[in-house]
């Protein structure tokens, strides 16, 4: 379905991302790119349920946080290896997503958005107050990085340098995007979009809406959990604020600015919103003001985001918008 020109563009961008650290060795820029990569994973996973299935989930920060805290606790208290903690923590985030999805997905529209938002607040409160497990407001410190992968004959691959961390995050970003692409191109992915279009109609043609929504929601939470694990092991410190609903809002902003319901949208939005404020060095309160203003102007004048805007400039058929 994809035109040849777009495939070449994607291949070129992947190649650029792969060789990037060979040219830029500046730690500051690498750090920004690693953070963008992690947040891109989170935003892309939210896009699956929000952009493609049309359910405005505002609990994404909680699932990100559950993944981050679960992996950190597994590594710190149970001394599990990173490579074991990663799938376990992501699966736990997915499992929580399943449990929350069961009641929450019965509601629609604003009810669903506010219900999930309240769930996010409950999770943050529990993490903040359950000091015996999570250290509360003091935060979790000294979370170990990924363990080296031993490979016979070549020797172990360690993740000590920023460049190695960059490739690790990039690898997981590709994995996430690849999984999204495969899901969305499958029959299941089409049922997602059918529900976004019209839930009653989808049910009328025999799509089990609740089960499909639950599948999309759980998958999305699983990948948010992966983002959380990567964040925890990269930064090495976690506090309850990292799980709160501002994380959900941020991801939502990245998606809406980049282009909701498109593959590239969340990544473009994240790159812009993580890099530009970092490099501009403006005071935090003015930054918030500009954020807010851009958000309002974009949503009024360019509601399909940058990707959607470019798409309509090039005369492509409209995509996205739940």
């Amino acid at each position, binding site marked *: 379905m994809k035109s040849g020109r777009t495939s070449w563009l994607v291949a070129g961008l992947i190649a650029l991302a792969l060789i990037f650290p060979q040219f830029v060795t500046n730690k500051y820029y690498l750090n920004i790119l690693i953070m963008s990569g992690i947040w891109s994973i989170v935003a892309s996973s939210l896009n699956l349920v929000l952009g493609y299935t049309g359910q405005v989930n505002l609990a994404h920060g909680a699932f990100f946080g559950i993944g981050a805290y679960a992996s950190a606790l597994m590594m710190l208290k149970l001394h599990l290896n990173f490579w074991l903690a990663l799938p376990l923590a992501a699966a736990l985030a997915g499992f929580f997503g399943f449990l929350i999805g069961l009641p929450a997905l019965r509601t629609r529209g604003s009810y669903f958005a506010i219900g999930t938002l309240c769930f996010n607040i409950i999770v943050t409160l529990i993490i903040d107050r359950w000091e015996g497990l999570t250290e509360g407001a003091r935060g979790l410190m000294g979370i170990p990085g990924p363990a080296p992968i031993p490979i016979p004959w070549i020797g172990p691959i360690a993740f000590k340098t920023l460049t190695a961390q960059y490739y690790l995050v990039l690898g997981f970003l590709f994995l996430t995007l690849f999984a999204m692409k495969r899901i969305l191109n499958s029959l299941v992915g089409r049922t997602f979009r059918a529900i976004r279009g019209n839930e009653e109609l989808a049910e009328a043609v025999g799509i089990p809406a609740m089960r499909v929504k639950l599948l999309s929601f759980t998958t999305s939470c699983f990948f948010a959990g992966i983002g959380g694990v990567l964040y925890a092991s990269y930064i090495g410190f976690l506090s309850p604020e990292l799980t709160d609903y501002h994380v959900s809002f941020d991801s*939502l902003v990245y998606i809406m600015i980049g282009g909701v319901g498109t593959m590239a949208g969340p990544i473009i939005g994240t790159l812009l919103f993580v890099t530009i404020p970092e490099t501009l060095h403006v005071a935090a309160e003015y930054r918030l003001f500009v954020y807010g203003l851009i958000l309002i102007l974009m949503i*009024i004048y360019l509601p399909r985001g940058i990707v959607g805007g470019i798409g309509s400039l090039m005369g492509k058929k409209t995509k996205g918008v739940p």
Partner: protein
Amino acid sequence: MVLLLQQILNGIMLGSVYSLVALGLTLIYGILHIPNFAHGHKYMLAAFTSFFLVTNYHTNYWVALVIAMAVLGLVGMGVERWVYRPLRNAPHINSFIAAIGLLLMIESIALILFGADFRRFPPLYDRPIQLFGLSVTLQRLLVILAAALLIFLLQLFLKRTWLGATIEAVAQSPEGAQFVGISIDRVSSLTFGLGTALAAAAATLITPIFLVYPTMGSGPNLKAFVVIIIGGMGSIPGAVIGGLMLGLIESLGGGFISTDYKDIFAFGALVTFLTFRPMGLFGKGAR
């Protein structure tokens, strides 16, 4: 026993503030069908407005209340005109995103203008009163009485005046209302102004008991959303009863079970409601 009564009274006081904030939210939802997520931030602006009126300009407290309501009513109308009106025909999620943008802007304006410090209202009516063996400050009673009066006046306005009737008409059927010559633009503007003024009243009433700071709005904002889901979105009795219920759940849960997890009771109540009665107490079916 005394502790129980004290907690109930506190619960009613908190609940009447939640009711006022939720009433504004539910009115706006009933007309425009948007979750106005920046509602709590206007509540915060109102608290600052009346705080500066009383401390810097030595305005009478009740005059400050009225001025804050008027100022915020105008702010609400401006927001409706410049932010929500262009989005009226867009998907609801777009209005929600605009509300998040608005919330960020208002919060940053407050941080730039007022700084992040906590401020305390000068003592006004903090003389304790003996009531059935309870010791209560007058301010707490005034909050309850003033909130009840405002709710009563709102009800009169909606049921007994032409202007109020147009709001109900648009809430029931926008097409029908337009058909008989009611301007949707004007009603939206009026509703937004009214809803925001109610939040301003709530803020001015409660701030002498709590503190004034730029992020003070997010708590009541979320609670008000919990209230209108419990009560049913767009329902006025739902907002009043839901608000009182939430206040009581919070103060009794906080007083007798655990203060640490006080907020969890409120949000837990919401999750319970969503599970068993997703349309709320007075709702007409989940959308």
